[in-house]
């Protein structure tokens, strides 16, 4: 499923909304999450999961091909932890 299909599905369920509005709604949600992460905040959505940013300190790495040492800069990477309810739904058939 890609974003336009998600928009279409939501639009079909909300015939009173314009497709353009639904597009703006979907974009607003994921932009808000992106903005929060860029600002260094977390986003916690019960049942779905939690988005956060992890810090990776600077380190000395090695080029695996040449064995040469390289300085790797400090990094910040987005991280997602799946929520409990979704994790359970993914395995419903197996657990019962």
């Amino acid at each position, binding site marked *: *499923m*890609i*974003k336009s299909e*998600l928009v279409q*599905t*939501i639009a079909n*369920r*909300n015939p009173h909304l314009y497709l353009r*509005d639904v597009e*703006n*709604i*979907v974009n*607003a*949600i*994921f*932009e*808000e*999450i*992106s903005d*929060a*992460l*860029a*600002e*260094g*905040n*977390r*986003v*916690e*959505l*019960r*049942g*779905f*999961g939690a988005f956060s*940013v992890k810090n990776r300190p600077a380190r000395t790495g090695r080029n695996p091909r040449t064995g040469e040492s390289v300085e790797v800069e*400090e*990094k*910040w*990477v*987005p*991280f*997602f932890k*799946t929520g409990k309810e*979704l*994790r359970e*739904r*993914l*395995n419903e058939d*197996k657990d019962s």
Partner: protein
Amino acid sequence: MGGKTLTRAELAEAVYRKVGLSRTESAQLVEMVLQEVCDAVVRGETVKLSSFATFQVRDKNERIGRNPKTGEEVPISPRRVMTFKASNVLKDRILKAHQDRQPRESA
């Protein structure tokens, strides 16, 4: 900057602000969108949201784990997990925003 935790309430507020639906309907739509993504993933579909991220289901085989407290070996049953892969757009944005906030050492 930083340190705050946002929830559905803030996402609904963003929809309310940007789209101009009522607060109630904004909250319902946030829920509907999240639910739809969940449902697609549970059906085994990959959800690709351009310039944000890709959510995908992966099957994990059984493996042997260890109870970190007792050291006891326990089998971890095969399971399905969801993976999150941030788009390059999102990764770059987060990295740049954090680097720009770092106090630069004066040379």
